[in-house]
């Protein structure tokens, strides 16, 4: 047995990998293209666009008309000529001009619609109970940018005109206008330092760009050194060499991270130049002078560099773990796509405004680096949190490397010749009809459905309440259906669509009643432990049910899950799990997944238990119709209880107990167990007649 890892071997492997990588131009291109080409393009583009919009808005002249023949001169000091002079005044330093065009009042409307003029002011005299008053109406087209801009300009000037008139009137009355019009002064002071303001602009976009770019930089070499080695057939050559797996992996990992770190540093340098450029542009523009000293950014930048390097190590290790499962570049791309999505998604967190950077968040990979970069750019750094980010990234990288060393020990992975296990990303034409999904597919389908549930589901539920719940259920069934259609699976096997024996139906009903009783006991016990959790679940339910009727609730809360959730959990997922795993493991895992799906601590146990029972029933009978019935009954009881609590309390008082005496608990437990056992016995009965 070897005891030590030899540096010389690692160095030799590293050298070989580096030379191999550099020989391939794709590595260099991917490493350089984002920092050196894409960034400048994006930055230039946004600068140009910004200035183009600004100049097109500000340097224009706007044609306007004043229609004031219905106005009364002299009322409250109104004077049409004075107004015109003010509007057309070019003495102020504004970069736009209003040009007064005299058009007959009747043709103004038409002139506006043909864009001969951009806007017109109609002045009318109105009688109010306090006397007479001139009313100004600005006519414009909100659909035309120039017209609405002109309207805004006019409004500004009219405000000013009104103020002038007020002053004039007050002075005529012998009063002090300044005192009356502005008894208090309101002003706003932005306390963020100028550095912070620049930083926050960069901080929103920089983490995302940088994380994506490092990922891109690490991705190609990671594939090249793992899946690429398999594809080119050199892996076996490598395994003949006198090096240990640890030395091999560390050498490869160092090579990949060298490229990733180089890509990160290039990114930072490119960013820095862009910032300097921005700084110069802003300095020369005297409209928005920023008192930012570039040197103030240096400590922040140093921290960013350190964290970025740690992150590059982490992302290299993770990418290598993923690509090791692949046997070719194409397959590696398939495996890496979900990884990319996760990483990009997590890096978006920095866009969430005012997110608090807690120690907990600092330990979440990817998210931590994203928030850190964005925080550092607004000069909010807390060294203990930075240490957490640095250390956790290092630890995660180390764990990933350990995992990778284990993967490289697996002969299945090294020599295995079975086809891709994730079929969802394979070309549809290459797949054969029949069979059930692979476990990898099932995990992916489950993850997709859960992500949809989390992100889209919560939004539609908040927006459409009960109907949002139905949409969520459609996602739950839609994803596995789509996946099994795409991968050409045997629908009958995948979704266990076998007709049940009549006696099984009876058994299912009994088992469900028994399980329901046990779940009631369990949830009573758990509720006292997790009160808040129960309260939160109930609140959500009441909110969603608000304003719906019994039939709707029955349809959406009882029937829809009985179909949709069964299809995903007892259909697609269980079919894949029982193919790959031992029966007990398949049933327990599928049940637990169903529990997790309910996103509540108490419900994890109760629905987890139900899930295990349902999985057992489908495993035993091959019929999902039984569990659909059980699921429907289970949820229907809850709906009935919600809508008719009084009737139900009279009929089944034990459903409503806040707490139970030991005796009644014993009775419920006994009744539940008897029903469950009886139900399971019926389910185990051999069919009455042969097949």
């Amino acid at each position, binding site marked *: *047995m*070897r005891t030590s890892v030899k540096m*010389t*071997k690692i160095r*030799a*492997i590293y*050298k*070989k990998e580096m*030379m*191999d990588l550099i*020989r*391939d131009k794709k590595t260099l291109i991917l490493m350089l293209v984002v920092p050196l080409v894409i960034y400048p393009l994006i930055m230039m583009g946004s600068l140009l666009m910004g200035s183009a919009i600004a100049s097109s808005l500000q340097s224009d002249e706007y044609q306007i008309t004043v229609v004031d023949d219905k106005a009364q001169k002299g009322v409250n000091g109104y004077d049409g000529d004075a107004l015109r002079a003010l509007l057309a005044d070019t003495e102020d330093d504004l970069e736009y001009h209003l040009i007064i065009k005299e058009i007959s009042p009747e043709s103004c409307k038409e002139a506006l619609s043909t864009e001969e003029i951009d806007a017109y002011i109609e002045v009318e005299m109105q009688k109010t109970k306090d006397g007479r008053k001139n009313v100004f109406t600005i006519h414009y087209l909100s659909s035309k940018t120039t017209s609405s801009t002109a309207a805004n300009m006019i409004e500004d000037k009219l405000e000013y005109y009104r103020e002038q008139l007020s002053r004039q009137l007050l002075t005529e009355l012998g009063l002090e206008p300044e005192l009356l019009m502005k008894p208090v002064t309101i002003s706003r002071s932005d306390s963020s330092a100028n550095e912070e303001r620049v930083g926050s602009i960069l901080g929103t976009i920089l983490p995302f760009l940088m994380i994506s770019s490092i990922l891109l930089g690490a991705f190609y070499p990671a594939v090249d050194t793992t899946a690429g080695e398999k594809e*080119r*057939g*050199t892996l*076996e*050559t490598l*395994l*003949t*060499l*006198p*090096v*240990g797996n640890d030395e091999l992996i560390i050498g490869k990992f160092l090579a990949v991270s060298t490229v990733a770190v180089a890509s990160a540093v290039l990114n930072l340098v490119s960013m820095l130049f862009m910032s300097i450029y921005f700084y110069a542009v802003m300095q020369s523009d005297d409209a928005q002078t920023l008192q930012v000293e570039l040197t103030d950014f240096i400590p922040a930048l140093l921290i960013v560099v350190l964290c970025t390097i740690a992150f590059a190590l982490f992302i290299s290790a993770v990418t290598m773990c993923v690509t090791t499962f692949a046997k070719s570049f194409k397959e590696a791309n398939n495996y890496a796509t979900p990884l990319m999505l996760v990483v990009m998604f997590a890096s978006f967190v920095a866009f969430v405004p005012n997110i608090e950077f807690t120690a907990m968040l600092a330990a979440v990979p990817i998210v931590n680096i994203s928030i850190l970069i964005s925080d550092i750019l607004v000069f909010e750094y807390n060294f203990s949190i930075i240490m957490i980010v640095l250390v956790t990234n290092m630890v995660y990288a180390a764990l990933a490397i350990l995992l990778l060393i284990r993967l490289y020990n697996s*002969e299945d992975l090294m*020599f295995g010749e*079975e086809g891709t296990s994730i079929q969802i990303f394979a070309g549809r034409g290459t797949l054969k009809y029949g*069979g*059930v999904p692979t476990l990898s597919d099932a995990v992916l389908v489950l993850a997709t459905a859960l992500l949809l549930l989390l992100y889209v589901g919560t939004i539609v539920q908040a927006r459409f309440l009960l109907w949002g719940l139905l949409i969520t259920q459609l996602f739950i069934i839609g994803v596995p259906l789509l996946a099994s259609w795409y991968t050409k699976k045997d629908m009958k096997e995948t979704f266990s669509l076998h007709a049940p024996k009549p006696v099984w139906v009876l058994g299912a009903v009994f088992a469900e009643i028994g399980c329901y009783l046990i779940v009631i006991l369990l949830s009573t016990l758990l509720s006292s432990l997790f009160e808040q959790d129960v309260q939160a679940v109930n609140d959500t339910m009441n909110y969603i049910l608000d304003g719906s009727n019994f039939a709707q609730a029955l349809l959406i809360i009882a029937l829809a899950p009985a179909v949709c959730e069964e299809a995903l959990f007892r259909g697609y997922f269980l079919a894949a799990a029982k*193919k790959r795993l031992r029966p007990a493991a398949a049933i327990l895992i599928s049940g637990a997944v169903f529990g997790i799906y309910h996103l509540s601590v108490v419900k994890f146990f109760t629905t987890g238990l139900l899930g295990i029972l349902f999985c057992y029933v489908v495993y035993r009978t091959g019929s999902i119709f039984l569990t659909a019935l059980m699921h429907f009954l289970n949820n229907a009881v809850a709906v009935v209880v919600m809508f008719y609590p009084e009737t139900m309390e009279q009929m089944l008082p034990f459903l409503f107990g806040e707490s139970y005496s030991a005796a009644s608990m014993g009775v419920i437990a006994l009744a539940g167990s008897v029903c469950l056992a009886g139900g399971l016995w019926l389910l185990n009965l051999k069919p009455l007649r042969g097949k």
Partner: protein
Amino acid sequence: MIKADNLIKTFARTEKKNKRVEFNAVDGISIEAVDGEILGVLGPNGAGKTTLLRMLGKLMSPTEGSVIITDGNGRELTQEIEIKQSIGYLSGNTKLYKRFSAREMLLLLGEIYGMTKLEAGNRIEEIVRILDLGAFVDNRIERLSTGQSQRVSIARCLLHSPQVYIFDEPTLGLDIISSRAIIDFMKQEKEQGKTVLYSTHYMEEAEFLCDRIVMIYQGHVIAKGTPEELREQTQTTNLRDTFLKLIEEETQGGLS
């Protein structure tokens, strides 16, 4: 010397109806090849030759059984690194790093074998002479012909002067000139007291090259001995017929 004792390798395979079936690709094989000997490992496709050779070369670990390898002085090697250091392994799956030239690749591999730059450089010069690689040693491997790159593969095995060679179908798909060069090389190494394990489907080649032959079928050894002994045993005149007859007997024996 290389010696395998009762080697078993079990693989799991997913068959129809989603059943995981375990089967032994190598099912209790014991073989021994001594210094200065060429041992031929023959058998039809799927007999378990490649798995056997991978286990002998320490690329795979056996499910059961053990492999013993000694250096030129008869000392048993115990550490995996030491063992790999004294094996030259070549198969259809050990491809070359085609982005490098042969010289560059050999230099890098030399470093991994723990040679200094000078040692590796001298050794490469020597190998270039032995295998006559001079014309293409500095060309990128991706531009070499099949025969040329197979000779570079041999050079790779030779680089660290191993005691034991394991060659899985080294002459597959080569023209007469290239395979001649490889066969000559194996003879030379044998004469220098090295151990050569060699599998092939070319029976004529095996017949005149091998000192002894082990015949493998369905993970078992079905016959072993010198080519003459095997011919006598089966009363055939050439190894091709010997091979066919042995397989035939085995198939019928399995049926009865």
